[in-house]
C-alpha cells in the first residue's frame, strides 16, 4: 500500500474526517489547561472569595460581604499607595520612555560607531535582578558615603552631603533607579521600531526641506506609534505592579511617612505582615480592575488616533 496521501476527491466518505481524533487538541492543550486551571483560575476564584472575607491568623475566617471594599475606599493608606503608584507610573511614562526613545534615536543614527556594544551596554542593566538593583542604589543614595552625594559634593562643594535621597526624595530616587534599569530594555523596542521607519519617506522629507524635528514629529513618531503604545501599556502595567525595587531600596519598608508605599506593597503588608488575606485580596482585585481599565482606555485612545 502506498503511503502517499490520496487526492481529496478520491477519499470517499471519510475524506472530510480530521487527520487527528477529536480529543487530540484537548490532549495537546491539557498540560497548559490543567496548570492554568490549578494555578491561575482556581486561585483567582479563591482570591475573589477571600476578598469578601475577613481573615486573621491561621484558621480564623469570617464572611464580611463588601466590607473590605468599603473600607478600602476610605483607607487613607490605600489612597496614598495609589497616589504614589500613579506618580511613579507618570514618571515612568514621561521620563523613562523618553530616555529610552532618546537612546534608541542616538543608536539609530548612522554616524554612531560601535552601536552593537552600546546596545549591549544600555540593555545590560535590565538583565540584573530587581533586588540587586535595589541594594546597589540603596548604597548609591546613602547620605555622606553614597556615590551620588559624595560625587556631587566633590564637584559642587555647596551640595549637601547629607542630601536625603531616600528620606525626602523617594519618588525621584525610585525613578532614577528605574530609568537605569528599564531605559535600555525599552530602548530595544524603540530601536526595532525605528529601524522599520521608511527611509524613503525620511529622505523625501529631507529633500523637501524638513528639519530633524519636523521629520521626527511627522514621520518617525507616527511610524513608531504602535510600538510606543505597546511600550506605554507595558510600562503602565509594570509600574502598577511595582514592589521589589522600593521595598529593597527603602530597607524593607515603605520609607519615611510611607512615601514609597505602592499598591502592591500595601497588599503585601496587609496580607503577609498583618495576616489579613481578605483585605489584601480586595486590594488585588481593585488593582486588577484599575489595570484592565487603563488597558481599555489606552486601546480606545489608540483606536481613535488611528481612525
Amino acid at each position, binding site marked *: *500500500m502506498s503511503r502517499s496521501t490520496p487526492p481529496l476527491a478520491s477519499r470517499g466518505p471519510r475524506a472530510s474526517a480530521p*487527520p*487527528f*481524533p477529536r480529543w*487530540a487538541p484537548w490532549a495537546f492543550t491539557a*498540560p497548559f489547561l490543567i496548570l492554568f486551571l490549578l494555578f491561575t483560575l482556581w486561585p483567582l476564584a479563591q482570591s475573589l472569595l477571600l476578598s469578601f472575607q*475577613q*481573615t*486573621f*491568623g*491561621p*484558621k*480564623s*475566617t*469570617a464572611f*464580611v460581604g463588601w*466590607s473590605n471594599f468599603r*473600607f478600602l475606599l476610605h*483607607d*487613607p*493608606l490605600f489612597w496614598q499607595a495609589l497616589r504614589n503608584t500613579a506618580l511613579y507610573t507618570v514618571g515612568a511614562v514621561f521620563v523613562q520612555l523618553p530616555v529610552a526613545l532618546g537612546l534608541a534615536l542616538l543608536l539609530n543614527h548612522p554616524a554612531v560607531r560601535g552601536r552593537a556594544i552600546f546596545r549591549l551596554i544600555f540593555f545590560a542593566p535590565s538583565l540584573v535582578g530587581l533586588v540587586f538593583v535595589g541594594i546597589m542604589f540603596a*548604597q548609591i543614595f*546613602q*547620605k*555622606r*558615603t*553614597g556615590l551620588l552625594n559624595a560625587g556631587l559634593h566633590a564637584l559642587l*562643594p555647596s551640595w*549637601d*552631603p*547629607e542630601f536625603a535621597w531616600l*528620606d525626602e526624595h523617594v519618588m525621584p530616587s525610585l525613578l532614577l533607579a528605574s530609568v537605569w534599569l528599564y531605559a535600555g530594555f525599552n530602548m530595544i523596542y524603540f530601536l526595532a521600531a525605528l529601524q522599520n521607519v521608511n527611509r524613503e519617506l525620511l529622505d523625501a522629507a529631507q529633500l523637501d526641506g524638513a528639519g530633524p524635528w519636523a521629520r521626527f514629529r511627522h514621520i518617525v513618531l507616527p511610524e513608531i506609534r504602535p510600538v510606543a503604545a505597546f511600550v506605554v501599556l507595558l510600562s503602565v502595567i509594570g509600574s502598577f505592579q511595582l514592589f521589589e525595587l522600593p521595598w529593597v531600596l527603602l530597607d524593607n*519598608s*515603605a*520609607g*519615611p*511617612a*510611607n512615601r514609597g508605599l505602592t499598591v502592591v506593597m500595601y497588599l503585601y*503588608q496587609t496580607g*503577609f*505582615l*498583618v*495576616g*489579613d488575606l481578605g483585605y489584601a485580596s480586595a486590594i488585588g482585585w481593585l488593582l486588577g480592575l484599575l489595570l484592565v481599565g487603563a488597558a481599555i482606555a489606552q486601546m480606545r485612545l489608540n483606536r481613535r488616533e488611528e481612525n
Partner: protein
Amino acid sequence: MSSPRPFTFLSPGAWLIVGLAVVSSLAYLAWPVPSRPGRDFWFFSPPNEQHYRAILEKWNAAHPHDRVNLVQIHYQALERRLVAAFTSDTPVADLVETESLMMSRAFAGRLEDVGFVDLTDRLHREGLWEKINEPSFSLWTTRGRTFGLPHDVHPCLLGYRADLVEAAGIDVAQIETWDDFRRLLGPLIRDLDGDGRPDRYLLNFWENNRDLVKVLLLQAGGDVFDAQERVSFDTAINARTLASLVSWVAGPRRFCVDARDFTAGGDQMRIEGTVLASILPDWQAGTWKSNLGPLSGKVKLMRLPAWERGGLRTSVWGGTAIGVTKAAPDPEKSWAMAKHLYLSPQVAESLYRSTYIISPVKAHWQLPCYREPDPFFSGQPVGALYIAEAPHVPRRIASPYMTLAMERLMSVLVALKAHALARNTFDAASLLPEAPRRLAEAQADLAAHIARNVLYAAAPAP
C-alpha cells in the same frame, strides 16, 4: 484494504515526548522521598550553629532514638515557611527558633490557633519563670499566655569613642540624662574640613530608624500598644519623646547623624569619628568587635543617658526565642530538647564569647566569662555591664499589628519634623502641642483598621 495503522495520528517525535512525560511522571511519583529520622530544629542565625551543634551532637550520641536535626534556614524563608505551616498545615519543624516580629505574626487569630505550644503552665510549674529574666518573656506572650522560651535579654548600653571624648577632657560619669549628653558632648560637634557643615555628630540616630525610635520610646516608658494590646499612641510620654527626637535631628541644636547600622557607609562613619556614640544592645557590641577592628581599644560602653533624672538607664532591642510547634509529634520531648539547649551554661558561654549576647538565665550571670576584661572595649567587662542592666529592660508588647503601628508612628515623627522645619521651631516644648494631635490622628486611623477586624474583636485581650 488494510485497516489504518494504530498510533499513526501522532508523529514519532510527539510519541517520544508523550513517552518521556509519562515515564518522568511515574518516576517522580514513585521516587522515594528521603526522610530524616528524629525531630527537626529550624533556626536562622548563622552564628548560633556552632553553639548548638556541639550540644546537639552530644545529645544525639546519648539519645540515638531521639535525634535532633539542626536545620539553618534564612530568616525570610523561615518566616514564609512558618506562615505557610500555620495557615496551610505544610510540614514544619518540631522546634523553631524565632525572632520577635515573626512571633508576633504567629499571634494573629484566636489563642487556640497559635501554631506554637502554649508554654505558660510549664514555665510556672518548672520554676523557669523565676529562673529566667522575667521581662524577656514579654515579647513571646500574648493575652497572658507565653509561647516561647527566651534566648536572650538584649539590654542596651551606649558605645562611644572614648579616645575622642577623653581627649576633650569630658567625664562621661557626669552624664545622667540625654540633655546632659547633649550639653557635655556638644562642643565636640565640629566642622573638620572647613566647608561650613559639621563633620562630627554625637549620636547615631535618625527619624527614619524604626528600631532606634522604638528603643528610645521604650526607654522613655512609651509604646504603641498598652498592656492589653490596645493601640496606645496618644500618650503624654509618646508625645514628649517624639517632640524631643525631632529636636535631636533638626534645627540648630541637632546632635544626631544617620550612620546606618549594618552598612559599609555607617561603619566608615563610626571609624572616621563622624559619629561619636551609638546605642548598642549586647548583640551589636559583638558586631562592632567583628566589623570595626580599627576601633579596638578606642571605644567604651556606658549606661544609656535617661530621659529624666532617676529614669531608666537602659532599653531593649531585638529578641529571639525557641518555640515548640503544635505539629511536633511529641511536644514533651521537644520541650525537653529546647530546655537542654537554651538553659545550657555551655551554650551561654559560647554564645557570649562569640557574640556578646548574654543569657536570660539568671544563674548563668555568675559565669566568669562575663567579667573578663575586653581589649576591644578598652578593658571593660562587657558581659557584666550588660548583665547589670538586664533586670531593668522594659517589657514589650507583641501584636500582629506591630508593623502597621510602627509605620504610623514613624509617619507621625516624619510629619512632626516637617512641621518643625516649616515653622523653624525645633525645641521640644514648641512641638508639644502638635505632637498629640498627630498621634491622636494616627491612633484613630490604626484603631479603625483594627476595629474592622471582626475576628480580633471576637478574641479580645483579657
